[in-house]
């Protein structure tokens, strides 16, 4: 196959419109990127940024509108067509095979190296070296992917995309899984690369938009609401344009209370799915009436911790004292009955049964309770009343209570989960990434509810990788790294810098 190496001097999307069931995902959007430009595509989650880029990459066909490269109209029927035209996209979720080396991963897509009988790995290796040198992107071709940190994996993705001939980069929230330090490195790197090629990057973090981009395009509800040069606008201007109004996320400004310890984790050892210890002798105490933020880059044991506390994962050794009772390795049912509330990470697959209606999901933990069933028969009236009440109280925006919960938007699914967990009157709450992927309005609502519960004297463990969220809500911040608590800081001692360093695994901040 012949791959042209002509530079992409201009890319233009004209009047792009795309409809999904019930949503106008892209509403007559036009944007242009010239040679060597960096365009930041900004907007809240669900604003249609990723959809627009998926259209550009040929994953979706636009219902209306056209795409022009170097002034010529192009039709991408699949991502392959877009690759051939020189576009390369790095997705939020990396597309790498963990038990293969960097070299093998890149060879997978490098068609020139494939002949009917032989795979020319030497040729791929040369190509990697060439790209590494050209852009200052250094990777070890013989390292296995699973050995690499998230930041390194991302570099592999970049190298892979460039090796396959990309002359125009699209990055979907490139910094979402990185530590603050890795983020800074990436921004320096991308800046250097922008002299060679054009970049579109999706983000909702305003600081990096300011640092990196030349132009900015803001999407809201699928429509382009603003387009301009970055340097003329302050981050707060951009934030206001993004949300359509001034947003102030609520802050925990109450004095920290000294309740009694309600959840006490002692020398906890828990294995991950892959069989190694994800938590190593972890210790943490949480008191009633306080929010403890668990900061850390995802994949450092947060998931395993939340699952172990809720009886969904085996505890190898150690104790989980919940109001004095050791609940380690008890059944999930037992732990729920003991008063544990849990907002899980995977809201679409774990927090709800997607095919069940909203009203059914609201009784997921309570179908056997007298309130909702009598002599084993479900009380439909009580179930519907419960759903209608919660729908109003938690502002769940659904057409009715009978719709499949899986058809709701992320924010509304999260509200269904929150409504269920809070209305059960838990004695403790574990919230894992409660606002990940939600727009600011929903995030604001959820944070208010959490602070409300704190005021009622409930202890909350808040797992998050968003430092702002942690700093806004927590009384104390515990930093998790490789399955251990690095340090527990009082809120007044915690800031972005100190947390960032701890999250990267440096224990003693004097050394940095």
């Amino acid at each position: 196959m012949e791959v042209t190496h002509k530079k992409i001097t201009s890319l233009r999307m004209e009047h792009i419109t795309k409809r999904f069931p019930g949503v106008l995902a892209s509403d007559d959007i036009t944007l242009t990127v010239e040679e060597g430009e960096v365009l930041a595509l900004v907007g809240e989650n669900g604003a249609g940024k990723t959809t627009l880029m998926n259209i550009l990459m040929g994953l979706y066909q636009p219902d209306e509108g056209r795409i022009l490269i170097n002034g010529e109209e192009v039709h991408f029927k699949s991502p392959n067509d877009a690759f051939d035209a020189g576009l390369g996209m790095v997705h939020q979720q990396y597309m790498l095979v963990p038990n293969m080396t960097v070299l093998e991963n890149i060879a997978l897509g490098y068609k020139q190296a494939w002949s009917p009988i032989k795979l020319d790995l030497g040729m791929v290796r040369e190509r990697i070296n060439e790209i590494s040198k050209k852009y200052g992107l250094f990777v070890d071709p013989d390292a296995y992917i699973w050995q690499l940190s998230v930041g390194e994996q991302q570099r592999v993705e970049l190298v892979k995309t460039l090796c396959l001939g990309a002359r125009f980069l699209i990055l979907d929230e490139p910094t979402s899984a990185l530590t603050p330090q890795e983020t800074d490195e990436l921004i320096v790197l991308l800046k250097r690369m922008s002299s060679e090629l054009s970049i579109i990057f999706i983000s909702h973090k305003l600081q990096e938009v300011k640092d990196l981009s030349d132009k900015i395009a803001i999407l809201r509800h699928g429509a382009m609401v603003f387009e301009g040069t970055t340097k003329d606008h302050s981050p707060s201007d951009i934030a206001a344009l993004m949300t359509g109004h001034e947003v102030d996320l609520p802050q925990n400004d109450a004095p920290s209370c000294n309740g009694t310890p309600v959840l006490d984790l002692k020398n906890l050892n828990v294995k991950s799915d892959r069989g190694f210890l994800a938590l190593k002798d972890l210790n943490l105490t949480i008191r009633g009436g306080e929010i403890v933020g668990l900061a850390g880059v995802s994949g450092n044991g947060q998931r395993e911790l939340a699952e172990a506390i809720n009886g969904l994962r085996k505890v190898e050794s150690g104790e989980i004292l919940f109001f004095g009772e050791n609940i380690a390795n008890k059944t999930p049912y037992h732990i729920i009955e003991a008063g544990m509330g849990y907002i899980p990470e995977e809201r679409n697959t774990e927090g709800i049964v997607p095919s069940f209606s909203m009203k059914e999901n609201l009784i997921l933990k309570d179908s056997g309770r007298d309130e909702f069933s009598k002599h084993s028969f479900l009380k439909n009236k009580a179930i519907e009343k419960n759903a209608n009440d919660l729908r109003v109280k938690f502002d769940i925006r659904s057409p009715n209570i009978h719709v499949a919960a899986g058809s709701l938007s992320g924010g509304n699914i999260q509200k269904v989960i929150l409504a269920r967990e809070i209305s059960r009157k838990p004695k403790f709450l574990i919230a894992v990434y409660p606002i990940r992927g939600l727009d600011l309005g929903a995030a604001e609502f959820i944070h208010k509810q959490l602070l409300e519960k704190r005021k009622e004297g409930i202890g909350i463990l808040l797992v998050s990788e968003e430092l702002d969220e942690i700093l806004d809500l927590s009384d104390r911040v515990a930093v998790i790294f490789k399955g251990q608590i690095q340090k527990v800081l009082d809120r007044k001692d915690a800031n972005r810098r100190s947390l960032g360093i701890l999250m990267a695994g440096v224990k003693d901040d004097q050394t940095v």
Partner: protein
Amino acid sequence: MTKQFRILYKVSIIILAILAAMLIGSIILMTIGADVFKTYLVILFEPLKTTLQLSEVLLRAIPLTIIALGISVAYRSGIINIGAEGQMAMGILGTTAVALAFPELPKPVLLPMAVLAGAISGGVWGFIPGFLKAKLQVSELLSTVMLNYIAAQFYTFLLRGPMLDPAELTMGSGTPQSMRLSRNLWLDRFLPGTRLHTGLFFALILALLIYFLLWKTKYGYKMRAAGASARAARYGGISVTWYLVIAMVISGAFAGMAGAIEIAGVHRRAIEGITGGYGFSGIVVALFGGLHPAGIIPASFFFGLLIVGADMTQRMVGVPANMVNVLQGIIILVIVATKMILADPYLMEKVWRKVQGLGKKTKEVTA
């Protein structure tokens, strides 16, 4: 999007699916040189023409309904039961054993006891793969299929040995069958001149029962939750493995009952070949009926029609009855494809827009 459109959309997809299945079927019919039009005509309409033939269709629908109900419970709970054939055979053995042991018991005692014995035997045969799956993650596809073989061999063994009709021994013909079972086990035949028995009402009552179990009780709620999303169910404090085993026991018990009803109503003794593929057709019926009692009843009737119709085509058009198996296979494939299409809301939206005449420049619809 209006509700009428939604219903119309789904109905037309299903009709298209049936037409597609018939079209593929007709290609195969043509290759064996049959008269396609006449074959379909005979299969679909001939059995409806006389009361006798209609009663035969209903007769086939009874075990199909009962088995499919059980299979739908398993499916809804997240476990695929391919072992109904073996569970039915075990049910027949259980019923036969009780009927042979206590032939003198009065009917109101013997009949429920024998049916219960059938249900328990089938239930045990369902429990084994359920338990293996829950405790040791043994694939139910393997264990149920293997248990079918064991059940079939066990069935043959008993009919040729311990349960063999003593008369066969003395007479010397040696046909592997039990002696004729006590009259007190027989189900009444309520339509004079036909074999149609009261098991029909029993099947309908079971259908109602399953509907209530699955949709109106907390147990059904938990089973469906476990089946729809095991992860979310576990998170919600539902013991997924426990309900998995329960569902398999129910599924097996229903297949066992189907066997019990079949010998109490039709054969009145255990002979070889009673199960005759009902256990497998039951899977197709359950899927075709949308895993819901309200769909399973008409689906059983339809499959009963196919079975009787196939016999008639053999006689009237000379198309082998095995063709029905081929048609069944085609129908399964079409169902799977249809489900994918029905589960795609995006496609529905697209069609809706086309219907409305929106989207001026619509692209070719690629399903």
